[in-house]
């Protein structure tokens, strides 16, 4: 088992001193390899709080999160019975604004900062950086550039390379594509999908983009007011009737197929998963 939440509750204290329930009785198993999970739900529903528990940046008030065999509880952390550093190396978390975390004078130094901190020899870390810059879709000339002169999308890629350089077993990304133009978004999603398929790594993605959920996810989690209200197949999720109550939208592809069915009476053999799939079915209906 990669990560296992058992009866996790967590509340945070706002600046007004009031307590806000952020996670309520979360039970959730996540595989160590092979998962592609999207985590969705409206702003303030607890998505970021949930993923921050996955690498022990936050510790549950009650209940436990077992991360790659290490059981994290409030008591274990208070009594320093467990080490959190190895967890943070194995579960890489890319924050919502990774670009704010770049600080070195070159991209290369930024990428090797993490591995060096965890004791990887410099030559080895540099070799890794040369490899990873290509994995995130940039060329090696970027390594000598200053991170501050890069565009938003390029900064995101560099910070993702920095997290990958720690060679995490599980990769978590908090809204990695928000603010990117369509091509930048698709390129980055292709990168995640490649990491997932070639390295068989578990990827967990927080997103507001239902098209991403529909196209890439093998499993969808929906949060609402601190509760995990859905855990299952993304396609089945969007065929439910109450998704508006969860503040979700129908993905464009599904909405278009439904529109064509209802307006023109086309009969489709199945629900299209990709655009190509829809086109093939349309071809068959028209011909």
């Amino acid at each position, binding site marked *: 088992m990669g990560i296992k939440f058992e009866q996790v509750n967590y509340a945070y204290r706002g600046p007004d001193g009031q307590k806000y329930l952020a996670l309520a009785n979360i039970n959730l198993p996540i595989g160590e390899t092979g998962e592609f999970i999207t985590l969705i739900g409206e702003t303030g529903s607890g998505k970021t709080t949930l993923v921050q528990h996955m690498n022990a940046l936050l510790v549950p008030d009650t209940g436990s999160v077992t991360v790659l065999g290490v059981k994290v509880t409030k008591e274990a952390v208070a009594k320093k019975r467990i080490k959190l550093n190895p967890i943070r190396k194995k579960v890489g978390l890319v924050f919502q604004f990774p670009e704010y975390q770049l600080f070195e004078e070159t991209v290369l130094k930024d990428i090797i900062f993490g591995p060096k901190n965890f004791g990887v020899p410099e030559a080895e870390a540099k070799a890794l950086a040369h490899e990873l810059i290509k994995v995130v879709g940039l060329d090696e000339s970027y390594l000598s550039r200053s991170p501050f002169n890069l565009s938003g999308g390029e900064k995101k890629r560099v910070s993702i390379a920095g997290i990958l350089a720690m060679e995490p077993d599980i990769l978590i990304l908090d809204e990695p594509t928000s603010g990117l133009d369509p091509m930048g978004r698709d390129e980055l999603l292709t990168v995640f999908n490649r990491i997932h398929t070639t390295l068989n790594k578990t990827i967990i993605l927080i997103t507001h983009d239902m098209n991403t959920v529909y196209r890439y996810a093998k499993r969808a989690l929906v949060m609402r007011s601190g509760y995990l209200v859905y855990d299952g197949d993304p396609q089945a999720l969007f065929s439910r009737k109450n998704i508006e109550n969860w503040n979700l939208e129908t993905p464009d592809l599904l909405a278009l197929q439904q529109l064509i069915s209802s307006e023109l009476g086309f009969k489709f053999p199945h629900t299209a998963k990709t655009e190509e799939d829809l*086109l093939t079915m349309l*071809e068959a209906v*028209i*011909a």
Partner: protein
Amino acid sequence: MIEIRDLSFEYQTGKPVLHDINLSIKKGEWVTILGHNGSGKSTLSKLIVGLLKPKTGSVVVDGLTLSHDTVHAIRRKVGIVFQNPDNQFVGVTVRDDIAFGLENLQVPREDMIERIERFAQKVGMTEFLNKEPHALSGGQKQRVAIAGILAMDTDVIIFDEATSMLDPKGRRMIVDYMRQLNREGVTILTITHDMKEAVLSDRIVILKEGKILLDDQAELVLNNRDMLEQSNLELLLPLRVRHALKERGLKHPELEALLWASSSNK
């Protein structure tokens, strides 16, 4: 309403971010500026409200040429809502926040209270007036930002990727305000790479590498696959399907009409 003439800008010498921009926006018009990341679209919005100084060229808003002396008068005419709702709060409460712009204008207290109430109600945030901004969702924060701008009675509102960080509900809410405000005669300038937002406007300008690539009626730009793809943008899904069917030599007039209609807001 806004006249931009031969506008150029660079952050670093020799690396122009905007190059010879000429753009004229009429009163009551809704114009979208589309462009890839780094195309210069946000720089353009900052130049219009005088947050940046052009290298060459001029910006004229409602007859006033932007300069050190007119910048405050122009900001009373042009409000801007930014991308990150967390970065635009100065007040301890929602009420303070809406008041901030009015205090700068030295609006009398009585008038100020009335305006805060009126515009908080308009964006549906009355019950949140005494709340701290941090307790609000992204969409609610953007509504407060809009109320603050409306309270200053601006003629133009620039939405600079104002929905790109919001969840679907927040996004719908802000887009509904854009439509409503435009119906009431407010000139709207949206800066985005979201085609679903662009489809709502009258006119679309595509910026690419600091230059205007295309400036035309929204319907025409939306269907121009070559120009969009050149700019890291994409056709809306129904139009992509429409193009693909054509390329495969498939003809079905009703389907084509439906695909066209479903990608237009008119």
